[in-house]
């Protein structure tokens, strides 16, 4: 299934990361000391470690340490953002690509990057670093109320609701999940909503929902496999949501596999997914 990957995700991550780079501000002198170790740009990294938050001005930035090196993951924004920060008290699965861009917040930039907060508690993940001279500038929002961009974005999104015109074609939608999680954040529920809109607008004859069990090959050679029960739960949650949103139950078929997808260390986040195919 990995050859069915949706490159749009990677593309949007790239755009976001580019925007984030604009946030990069002058580094304090000692930051460059940390770059003595050379990590080849383009190298893919997949590791589990405690996330770290740095108390930078404007908004905090998020980092993770791996093999003695600090990596920059993203900044705190809101649920409209592509990057969702991880959680202290939890380890994070970090899957990203080393960028050749200047460090941000003292960390080598991973871009694109996917971060999954792992569900079990790890109380040793509790590091809040001081700003140490690092700053975030020109972020879309700071630590206070939304500077009116949220309502503008919502209005823009409402205007962008697609009007479907015949001939209708089969469409495939993919919902990705954090590792070992069934929670669907707003970016995932937007996909489910779009499935409902398309299916009801074209009076779809069939919706196939298929769940896959994710796995990840870490850079250190270890392999992580999701819980076997997750694909079924994810599929049933999406089926239930679609029916609740008005899709006829009779046109929905579901299946899932508890056999883990084969990871290769390249965009393994795409293995933990539910694929929804809408057929006119």
């Amino acid at each position, binding site marked *: 299934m990995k050859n069915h990957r949706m490159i749009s995700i990677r593309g949007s991550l790239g755009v976001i990361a580019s925007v984030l780079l604009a946030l990069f501000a002058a580094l304090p002198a000692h930051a460059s000391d940390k770059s003595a170790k050379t990590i080849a740009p383009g190298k893919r990294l997949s590791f589990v470690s405690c996330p770290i938050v740095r108390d930078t001005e404007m908004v905090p930035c998020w980092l993770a340490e791996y093999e003695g090196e600090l990596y920059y993951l993203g900044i705190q924004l809101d649920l409209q953002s592509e990057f969702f920060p991880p959680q*202290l008290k939890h380890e994070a699965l970090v899957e990203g690509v080393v960028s050749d861009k200047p460090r941000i917040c003292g960390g080598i930039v991973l871009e694109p990057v996917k971060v999954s907060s792992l569900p079990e508690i790890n109380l040793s993940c509790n590091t809040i670093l001081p700003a140490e001279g690092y700053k975030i500038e020109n972020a879309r929002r*700071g630590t206070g109320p939304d500077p009116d961009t949220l309502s503008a974005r919502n209005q823009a999104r409402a205007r962008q609701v697609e009007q479907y015109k015949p001939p209708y074609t089969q469409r495939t939608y993919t919902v990705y999940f954090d590792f070992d999680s069934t*929670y669907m954040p707003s970016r995932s529920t937007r996909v489910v909503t779009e499935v409902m809109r398309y299916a009801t607008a074209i009076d779809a004859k069939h919706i196939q929902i298929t769940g896959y069990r994710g796995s990840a090959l870490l850079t250190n050679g270890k392999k992580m496999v999701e819980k076997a029960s997750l694909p079924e739960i994810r599929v049933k949650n999406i089926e239930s949501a679609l029916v609740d949103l008005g899709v006829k139950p009779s046109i929905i078929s579901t299946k899932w596999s508890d056999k883990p997808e084969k990871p290769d260390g390249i965009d393994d986040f795409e293995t933990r997914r539910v694929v929804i195919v809408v057929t006119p």
Partner: protein
Amino acid sequence: MSSAKTRKISRSILVAGGAAILVGAIAAAVNPLHASNRSDSSVSGHVPAQGRQAQSVPTRAGNTDDYETTDQWFTPGSGQVLPQFSQYANPAGKVEILNANGPLPTEGHPFFTPLGSNGRACVTCHQPSDSMSISAATARARWEATQGKDPLFAAVDGSNCPSLPQDDPKSHSLLLDHGLFRIFLPWPPKRPDGTRIEPEFTLEVVEDPTGCNTDPKYGLKSDNPMVSVYRRPKVVGNMKYIEPHYAQYFNLKTGEPLAKDPETGNRVSMNLMADARNLTLKSQAFEAATTHLQRKGGLTEDELSKIVAFERQIYVAQGEHSVAGPLVVPGGPNGLGALAMLNGQYGLGNIVSNPVFGFFDMWRAEPNTTSPRDEAAEMRASIARGADVFFFRPFWISDTTGLNNIGLGNPLKRSCATCHNASMTGHDVAPGWIDVGTQNLPTVQRLSHLPLFKLTCRDDVEPHPYLGRVIYTHDPGRALITGRCIEIGAINLQQMRGLAGRAPYFSNGLARDLRELVDFYDRRFNIGYTEQEKQDLVNFLSVL
């Protein structure tokens, strides 16, 4: 009530009231909700079991005529008129109650009439003088005035447990000292259709100071297994801000679709109750009549319609501050007073151009320090600073289920308004069940007057994100309804209007006054408020 102040209301209220009546009439013509016979779909699945327990609790002969109506106490069945506009004194000044549809003769009105077997009406615990809730101070005054005979102290939930001697004030200590009523819910929980939910955790009673969870008749091992928790009554008012759902389809907290009104199929806010167990005002009223009023057979469609209509026409807000003076003045803040509640717009208030409680800039100016001191101006400046602290002052919000675990990161550096984000009322539009730490140990210190439960989650379910799989709690909150481990201790944020008249605060009455409320947050999130910031926040909260 006879001396309750009334004053002229602007024509806009009357127009709005008339419009509301018209809209209601149109709705009645097209909406099957208004059919003459009540549909059982409005009765939540947990209610029949509650009804069985409520009916098993003895009542005293309720004769509300025995108890004097005062300026501050609205006696059920008294028939007095609720004015279109009234003010009631409270510790910070005066709260305003605006009845948008005009003066209401309460004779026979189901909100004001004892409908059950214990002499209570809805108004018993939703007093206009107490911002349409009831304070612990009022409960104590009522005990003194009636020697504990007022129906407010009904054994079913106005005492720590019905099995206790009801003439002893110690048996009512949770109500008298903390403003808490017993909420009894079937365990295991039930779906809306009444089928049993298999909870993700076991529930053990560790401490039972009221005796009710281990009581052979009313407890968890009774013939009708019931868990008892103790909660404050919420405000009945400002419903145009509480009922609407902000998200179109999905609940941010769960990633699942927002629930629907079973009768209309319309989505609901899920923000009416502390644990969102009832989805509509109608189903809430039905349960309240069944439990709090001990009404057998619930309410008729006519009674339900009248109660819901009344609840939708009541607006509540502080109107006067004892030092700052009148809060509703020309050129003053645009978000204060009951009329502002009537005219305000529902929406997201965590936006720079649309602050949750409006703008206070005109009060921000430094007060004139020349002699004599202008104490009112100084207080208004303090209130404006408090509004800024509420809206802008960032701090690390951490380990809060329903916020930090939904993609925002743990910790999240934001302000009070991040969670208290609904325009005009300050609840959470999300909807807002959050484990802010008022119920679960160790974020809250052991409260010896409340029951303590040990909840052990199964290994195959997602744990509570910050407390794991073994959790000690005084009230499992939303988890008592869903059976979900991740929701243990999560309680819906309540609206922040009329605070000065309805201490104590939080669903379990944890904070005796506004200062303790501010201190709780300061400790909980290690905010480091200065003494000035704390006082400014208290002053700000007291004028909402």
